[in-house]
């Protein structure tokens, strides 16, 4: 059963230095508030996992939280580069960053394998690409029935998954709607799961339909964090702040401008404000 915690307590309890962590969200419901709390608690040496590391991972990498990044597309969608990620890879600033690079198809299959308790994911992919040359975790096997060469990657599992969702009920059952990404798979592939939500409700009102509901008994902590996905968006609550994503390009290009932005917008925010209470 999920505990109802504050953001500070949830992160402190489950995200440890050196943890393998996925803060997922496929351009929607990105857990920005939780990522900022990791930065504020100065948790380092993390292996950060995500299909589309975007601005929140750029911020965490720029603050030196990450030792390794497992990813398949690292950019600012529709805008361009993630300059903090590039600075870490190209100039080892603020510290060297190991990368394990995949394609989206591979990571999606690998999350599903992690959720299913399988050791690996088998799919049709990577043919003719150089990615297997630079990532020892991309292998192949022959289909025992047809002989076809198939790609194999290890299942993605992690110490902690952190996702954001629209609502939870008072037992900690969570409803995710809109672009649901790989959030459910990430939660089920992780030893521990933290879910930040826009609001707590008496009834999820899913009426037994096939809505994406993650039961409380798969979640460790639920944190009420209104606006916790901003400047990303929460379908039905607020829109993506596309102007901020565009402005991030200039903020993140320069190390000092970036540091000031983090000081003003992350470090100086009190935990109670960050938790929205």
């Amino acid at each position, binding site marked *: 059963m999920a505990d109802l915690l504050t953001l500070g307590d949830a992160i402190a309890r489950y995200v440890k230095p050196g943890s393998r962590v996925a803060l997922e969200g496929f351009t929607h419901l990105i857990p920005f508030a939780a990522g900022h709390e990791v930065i504020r608690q100065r948790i380092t040496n993390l292996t950060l996992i995500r299909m589309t590391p975007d601005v929140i991972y750029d911020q965490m990498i720029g603050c030196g939280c990450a030792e390794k990044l497992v990813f398949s597309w690292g950019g600012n969608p529709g805008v361009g580069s993630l300059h903090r990620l590039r600075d870490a890879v190209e100039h080892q600033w603020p510290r060297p960053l190991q990368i394990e690079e995949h394609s989206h198809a591979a990571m999606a299959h690998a999350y599903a394998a992690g959720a299913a308790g399988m050791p690996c994911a088998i799919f049709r992919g990577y043919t003719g690409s150089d990615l297997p040359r630079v990532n020892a975790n991309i292998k192949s096997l022959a289909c025992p029935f047809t002989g076809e060469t198939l790609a194999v990657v290890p299942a993605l599992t992690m110490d902690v998954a952190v996702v954001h969702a629209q609502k939870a009920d008072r037992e900690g059952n969570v409803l995710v709607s809109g672009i649901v990404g790989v959030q459910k798979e990430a939660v089920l592939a992780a030893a521990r799961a933290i879910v930040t939500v826009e609001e707590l409700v008496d009834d999820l009102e899913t009426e037994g339909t096939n809505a994406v509901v993650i039961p409380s008994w798969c979640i460790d902590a639920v944190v009420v964090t209104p606006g916790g996905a901003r400047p990303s968006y929460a379908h039905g609550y607020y829109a993506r702040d*596309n102007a901020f994503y565009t402005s991030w390009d200039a903020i993140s290009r320069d190390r000092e401008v970036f540091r000031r932005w983090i000081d003003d917008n992350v470090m100086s925010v009190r935990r109670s404000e960050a938790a929205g209470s």
Partner: protein
Amino acid sequence: MTAYTPTEMMTIAAARALSNDDICFVGIGLPSAACNLARLTHAPRLRLVYESGTLDTKPRVLPLSIGDGELCETARTTVPVVEMFQYWLQGGRITVGFLGGAQVDRFGNLNSTVIGPYAHPTVRLPGSGGATEIALHCGRIFIVMPHGPRAFVPRLDFVTSLGHGPTGTERRALGIATDGPVLIVTDLCLMQPNPDTKEFEVVSVHPGVTMDRVREQTGWPVQARERVDDTPPPLPEELDVLRSLQQRTHRAHGLDTAHA
């Protein structure tokens, strides 16, 4: 004749390549503009699929990200990302995929990963995203990229996505069932693979562009088809629809006002 930019010509030429029968895997940026222009002009039944899981999407404005709320709100349905890559892409449901990259070679292989050596890149690019498997599983691939000698290179720094292979023969030899790249649309010309060698050659040049200019902007000794057509200039209707789509988009993204 109405004035237009080379990027508008490129977008319109890419849109014209899509038909009412296509089910199209759409990337952000130029492909998204081209696909929606096609849907709003000559191909109203064109189905657009975005990798965030939205099927039959009809966005009123162009999304900035691959997962903008606009896509989900205007989709027939939205599926989980795992299902998108398993059932819809790998399952062979998509007829055409749009790709671009930082570099393309003469056989339509693409690099969107790094410039320079992988371990010590001069420029770290975003990476594959969906591209590696889009290149394998869509029925055919259209490549859209502005022309330039640094983009149209003799040899890729890194192969992110397979075109016809390093010598143009490997895709066929591997027995991949899909056609791979069949069209490159640039701001100067249209290119198609030679049926035998799979080397891309110029089949049409845009108004005012000479073959000399195309050669100067291509990093390999680019060949032209025996007969090179003139790309028809943008029609007033195409320009009107594209520009009003982009104006709506600009307003919707709040890019007219400074961000606090």
